[in-house]
């Protein structure tokens, strides 16, 4: 740190590298939501910005948590979210239907969303506490497998295939980075290949099966589930290179595009801003994810490394699955696009991930200096 640039320490340490692209993405998202609401700030764009403001403060506060708090909280948080998932299941069963949320006053909490960062946190803490020599032992695979399988089972019962897969993905990435033998992953991959058809025929609800078959052949059901994919591709495809112009997207403005403000917000954007808008969004996501990976690689200890990489992977999973879905490369699974889709739960999850990453970034800065002093 040179003396010539005498910025105050707090400004210097402020995580500009993520907040700037984030704000850009949120602003762009708000513009798209403004258009999706037929040219109005309410109801989507305004609440989108307000939510981001609140969750950004939450994330910044989070970033000041010391590492031992995070480690200490890992298991209690995991168990609490697990209990919430069970509670949701019970309430749902008593109410005679499936339910995914719990009412907390004015807030609607979706525990399955909280489980995404919680699974990363608990696995990072588990592997940090696992003696290094035991990484090749059965304990290194069995206990994490149980930790992942419990919430997966509960969420699958809701049923929410998208979130189940997100939890599995976040967990698998942590396991992979923790140094588990590659044979587990090769074996797991083969097992998944075998299990997938079985799961498809016995594990999925009827509507989920239909979504998969329609994804494989959208024309088979052009007015039902295939309608979503078809209309989304029409929106993106008709946008061309530069788009139809702000507020001029006929697909979204005339209601042909389903969910233009949530799951299909990218299609709404692409119709009006074209390929250039799409590349800009991809670029910003790339910047955020690259920052997350750098934070993970610069981390000083095993816990922070796994935590940061897991959180980055969780955000990535959202982005990748959503974009593949709107472009017709994945079935419609109901995963929103981080920071652009309107919706509180996904914004909360993603901002927790960002907050955790900012927290690790702060630890990275503090550790060397504290070790020196």
């Amino acid at each position, binding site marked *: 740190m040179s003396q010539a640039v005498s910025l105050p320490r707090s400004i210097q340490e402020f995580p500009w590298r993520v907040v700037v692209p984030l704000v850009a993405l949120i602003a762009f998202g708000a513009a798209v939501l403004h258009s999706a609401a037929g040219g109005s700030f309410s109801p989507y764009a305004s609440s989108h910005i307000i939510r981001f403001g609140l969750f950004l403060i939450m994330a910044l506060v989070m970033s000041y948590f010391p590492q031992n708090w995070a480690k200490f909280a890992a298991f209690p948080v995991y168990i609490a979210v697990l209990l919430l998932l069970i509670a949701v299941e019970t309430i749902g069963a008593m109410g005679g239907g499936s339910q995914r949320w719990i009412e907390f006053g004015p807030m609607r909490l979706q525990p399955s969303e909280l489980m995404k960062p919680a699974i990363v946190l608990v696995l990072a803490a588990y592997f940090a506490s696992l003696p290094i020599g035991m990484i090749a032992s059965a304990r290194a695979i069995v206990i994490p497998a149980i930790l992942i399988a419990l919430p997966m089972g509960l969420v699958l019962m809701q049923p929410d295939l998208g979130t189940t897969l997100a939890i599995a993905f976040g967990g698998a990435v942590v396991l992979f980075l923790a140094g588990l033998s590659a044979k587990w992953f090769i074996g797991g991959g083969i097992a998944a290949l075998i299990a997938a058809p079985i799961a498809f025929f016995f594990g999925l609800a009827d509507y989920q099966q239909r979504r998969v078959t329609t994804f494989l052949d959208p024309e088979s059901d052009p007015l039902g589930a295939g309608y979503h994919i078809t209309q989304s591709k029409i929106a993106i495809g008709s946008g061309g290179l530069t788009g139809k112009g702000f507020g001029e997207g006929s697909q979204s403005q005339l209601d042909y595009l389903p969910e233009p403000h949530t799951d299909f917000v990218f299609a709404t954007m692409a119709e009006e801003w074209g390929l250039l808008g799409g590349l800009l969004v991809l670029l910003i996501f790339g910047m955020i994810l690259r920052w997350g990976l750098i934070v993970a690689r610069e981390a000083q200890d095993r816990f922070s*490394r796994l935590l940061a990489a897991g959180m980055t992977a969780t955000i990535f999973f959202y982005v990748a699955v959503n*974009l593949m879905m709107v472009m017709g490369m994945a079935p419609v699974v109901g995963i929103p696009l981080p920071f652009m889709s309107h919706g509180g739960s996904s914004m909360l999850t993603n901002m927790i991930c960002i907050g955790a990453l900012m927290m690790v970034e702060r630890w990275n800065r503090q550790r060397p200096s504290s070790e020196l002093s």
Partner: protein
Amino acid sequence: METPHTASSLKDTFDRRSFVIGAGIGGVGVLLAARMGYIAVAENERYAVEAESNRVNLTLIPPRRGWILDRNGSPLASNRADFRVDIVPERVKDLDGTVTMLADLLSFTEIETQDLRDRLEAAARFQVVPVQSGLDFEKFAAVSVRLPELPGVIPQRAFSRYYPTGPSVGHLIGYVGAPSREEYDEEPKPLLLTPGFKLGKDGLEKQFEQTLRGDPGARRVEVTASGRIVRDLETRDDVQGQPVRLTIDGPLQDYAARRLGHESGSVVVMDCLSGDLLCMASMPSFDPNSFSDGIGRIEYSMLSENERVPLRNKVLQGLYPPGSTVKPTVGMALLGQGIDPDETVFCGGGLRVGNRVFRCWNRRGHGHTDLAKAIYQSCDVYFYAMAQRTGMPPIADACKQYGMQQQFELPVLNQFYGTVPDPEWKQRKYGREWQAFDTVNATIGQGYMLANPLQLAVMAARLATAEMVEPRLILDGSERSFPGMGLSEEYKTYVRQAMSDVVNGPGTAGRARLPVDDVLMAGKTGTAQVVGLNISDGRTGPWEWRDHGLFIFFAPFDEPRYAGAVVIEHGGGSGAAYPVARDVMTFMLNPQKGLEALHRLEEQWGGTAQERLDRQYLQYANAAGVDLPPAPPPITLAREVDAEARSAVAEPDAPSTDAVTPRDQANPRADEINT
């Protein structure tokens, strides 16, 4: 794996593997960018077209139908702007709820609601089903306001067909209606699915469908996914269909239809010189105005249960024994066979042939009778005697030459052409020898002889002019002339005079004399027996046993201009027919005088044809309730009517075994008609 793990080896693993993850993320990013580039740039054209076809909806505007005009250029069928409501079942979410709500908004009766349900059931999913037309603005607005709750319901301003003289032109012009499933299958054009579009279902409306239809307009609108119209983009106006101009004289047609009154019958009037059909009235009829939204069950039951078959066009599809109206034609045949018109036959009330006596209608006999007297007094014995001399073939030939058993070149759906029997025909049909009584029957227009009223009118025109007059229905402005029939001027005048004497001399229809100065009408009465003397006297008793009354005529007798025929089904004799002919011709020559006569009559009958039909409908509706079977779709209706008509006039299965014994009064009921 066998190497022991250390903190730094795990850090290495992490670095390696996180690099793999990073590369994976980058790879997915590149894949997504490529995929998007492919969709948005390479396939842009295709998707742009699809987005455009989503956004823009092409709505057809049903073309205004061409008018049907009478010879004076007045409309017999025109279009009236009105408010209407239709349903497209495919777009309806809750059909039952929609029907209930519409019935409430439009204050339908229980029967009307049931009719609507039937129509919806019978229609294909994508078809347009009319709910109601001719709405007042309040009801139209009430439906329009509730539209968000009624998907698939289409209220619109449109044109509906209007027939100013209603029932008078029903059979002639036909009616229009929404295309049926069968009609769409036959002509699968989008226009046929357009709400508010109607096509011709019967009569001239059907015959001239392509001429009258016109070209649809189109409206390009921007619509939302749910079909709400956001704005108009472009509108192309429709092109109205071509008019069709008929030879029919509208007022005369209406007059004749009204003059028929309670009777079941028909009036044909034509111009002898051009062959133009001036009037083709057939009653009782239906009101084509009320048919265009589909026939309701009450209306259908009322019409189909009526023994006077209001759904049949009697001018073309009614076949009747011509009775004595055939006598002038038989007379022509006799003259053609060299029989001297002045030669007399003694009529003593009957003629003995072999060991049989054939009776004349006049039991007291006509005494010495020549051809003229045989025509104006309608003496049967004269014709029996003369026909025995010539035999049947020349008589049959003459009948055919004068128009019987002929189908004319007219733009109509269906003409029944009847029968002129001869020995060969009987052998072929029944395998029996021609008998003396067959000739006797034929000469007085009974037995196997059948003709429709149009043929009788043509017969009158040909008798009047001695030319091969051909009828026409479409006024194309061309001059027409007809070849002569190779008849001497002397004979033509002779028969004309004899027919004039029927009315103006010592004939059978003295009361048919026109109340107009200087114009004398010639004619010939006829009474066609339906059942034998042993069953009914032909005048009283059950309606369907009464005799048909017929009259053929032309005027002025010495320089014929108009000719025609009147047939009254089961009128009880010719006395029911000629007063109608007299009044129709009076109206032709002096409308004021004709109308006065009609108004006096309508006062007795209780209103005009339209008023009486409306009242009859109300009575029937009140008596019946909802328990009636639904009306069949229009196409079946036409078929059914045809079948019924055909069976009603079918030739007997068994050959006749004896002569018809004429009743002893040629013009019964004349005294009962109070004119």
